[in-house]
């Protein structure tokens, strides 16, 4: 009997050659990520549990991103708690102002194909873009991993999604994952793995795969998985070994469900307030005026996202009553976008370019909205109260749709070609 990608990763990790979906197994953790919001709680639980040392300091990564730079005095308490933990237990991998945790975990080389990774954030599913099993957990479980290096998991069943063909020019991987969440529902993949295949996926950049893996959790998924390939090798700066090269779903693997799409059938879509599975084609929305546009986050704050937005905005101006906020996902991306002229185009169009970090996505800083205001945003959640008051309307979209809407002052479908210099 063949195996799914997640079954192969877990078999390799545990040495259990027959592990299959729904078995409860204990995995050996390859890497963990803790961010600034939860480090004080992780530290407290770790000590309350009675641990004296970390199971492996090199496998622990601490990233300050949600609260950087601090917008409230109380935020600084989190940095103090983090710094004390670093000093006391000898952490080596710490990022205090380099960008969003999920961007840095892959960008800085902490995650490799086939790894088992946990993070104190639901969007930890992102690292499936390079073929790692990565998932979010709470701070109590994180504390127990820090002491033991182990975690129990139920091997998830897998939903296989195959996409073949060439995407229309104005469609991005964001439109694909939004459409999929709409089709599955916000709980359609709960407890399950999403496995992606097909030539459309093979032709995607790692950045585009990241957008899809990032939002897998919005359908409830435990993880998302892409087969590692030459692009993964280049991105991770590695040569794939035999185990990593074998991370492909077998033809005779058992799937919970198999979905097949034609790339040509996708259109630009938005997730309307206030559920991520409330998906509508952009072309079906008319005269929805907007107050703000946000382009950034661990979903869509990468160089290709900023370049696509800039291609739409080049030579144009943001509507006078709209604020366009652009937040690069990391310092590296910020620098690249500065060097290749992307930021100049955005600034000339009237964008406010902020420091890298989680920023507005988690509603703590840089563009909070109020009652009855509408925002088109490229991040991953449109829940009530996420970006300000509970009466803010959040529409989730691709960077292309977001940029076009910023110019129009209302939600519009971009139907021209995108030319990135």
């Amino acid at each position, binding site marked *: 009997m063949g195996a799914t990608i997640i079954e192969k990763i877990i078999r390799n990790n545990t040495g259990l050659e027959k592990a299959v979906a729904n078995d409860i197994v204990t995995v050996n953790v390859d890497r963990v990520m803790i961010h600034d919001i939860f480090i004080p709680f992780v530290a407290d639980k770790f000590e309350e549990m009675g641990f004296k040392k970390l199971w492996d300091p090199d496998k622990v990564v601490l990233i300050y991103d949600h609260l950087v730079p601090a917008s409230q005095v109380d935020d600084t308490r989190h940095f103090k708690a983090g710094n004390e933990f670093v000093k006391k237990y000898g952490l080596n991998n710490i990022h205090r102002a380099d960008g969003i945790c999920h961007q840095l975990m892959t960008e800085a080389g902490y995650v490799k194909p086939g790894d088992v990774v946990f993070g104190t954030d639901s969007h930890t599913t992102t690292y499936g873009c390079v073929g790692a099993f990565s998932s979010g957990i709470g701070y*109590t479980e994180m504390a127990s991993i820090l002491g033991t290096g182990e975690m129990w998991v139920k091997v998830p069943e897998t939903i296989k999604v195959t996409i073949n063909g060439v995407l229309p020019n104005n469609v991005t991987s964001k439109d694909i994952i939004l459409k999929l969440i709409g089709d599955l529902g916000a*709980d359609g993949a709960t407890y399950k793995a999403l496995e992606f295949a097909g030539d459309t996926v093979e032709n995607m950049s790692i950045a585009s795969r990241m957008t899809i893996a990032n939002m897998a959790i919005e359908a409830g998924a435990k993880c998302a998985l892409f087969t590692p390939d030459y692009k993964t090798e280049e991105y991770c700066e590695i040569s794939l070994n035999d185990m990593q090269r074998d991370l492909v779903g077998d033809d005779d693997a058992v799937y919970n469900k198999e979905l097949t799409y034609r790339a040509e059938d996708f259109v630009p879509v938005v997730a309307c307030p206030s559920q991520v599975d409330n998906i509508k084609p952009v072309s079906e929305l008319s005269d929805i005026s907007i107050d703000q546009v946000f382009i950034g986050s661990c979903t869509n704050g990468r160089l290709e996202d900023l370049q696509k937005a800039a291609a739409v905005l080049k030579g144009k101006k943001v509507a006078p009553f709209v604020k366009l906020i652009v937040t690069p996902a990391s310092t590296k991306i910020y620098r690249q976008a500065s060097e290749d002229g992307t930021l100049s185009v955005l600034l000339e169009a009237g964008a406010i370019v902020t420091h890298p970090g989680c920023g507005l996505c988690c509603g703590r800083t840089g563009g909070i909205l109020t009652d009855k205001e509408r925002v088109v945003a490229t991040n991953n959640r449109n829940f009530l*109260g996420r970006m300000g008051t509970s009466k803010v309307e959040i529409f989730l979209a691709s960077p292309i749709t977001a940029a076009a809407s910023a110019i129009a002052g209302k939600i519009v479908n971009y139907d021209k070609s995108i030319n990135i210099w």
Partner: protein
Amino acid sequence: MNDTFSGKIWVLDDDIDTDIIIPTEYLALKSVEDMKKYAFSPLRKELAGQIRQGDIIVAGKNFGCGSSREQAPEIIKALGIKCIIAKSFARIFYRNSINNGLLLIENKQLHDDAVEGDIIDVEVNNAVYYNGREYKISSLPQNLVDIIEAGGLVKAMRRRNGLD
């Protein structure tokens, strides 16, 4: 786990997400006690003040979807909620609840029949009784029972480290 109890129910809909349970802006408050008065505030501002010790939440599908914030089950527990009975739970919320000793029960039918303010009877690992009707519930896997019986993951780890 053989436990029987009764409680007044609060009825919530599908997809009650973690930003509804506790908005991000309150996550940097110092303690769960400081945060709990804001529980469910985007949806029902008055609810946190109305919940009493021993009450039960009955909800639709996908309860606890969204972020990994563990304050969500901690706050619900701190408000005095004895258990949540929902059509289904989001994965991370489910794990976090077990690790904090908050009992979760899945039942597909109860939410459709439940009227807020009514009293229900719960027999853990067997059934829920309401309006003269029995709603069967499944029993928990053993590894989760072990954690709950230890009093949560912290206590299970303290035991492992020879502290309790």
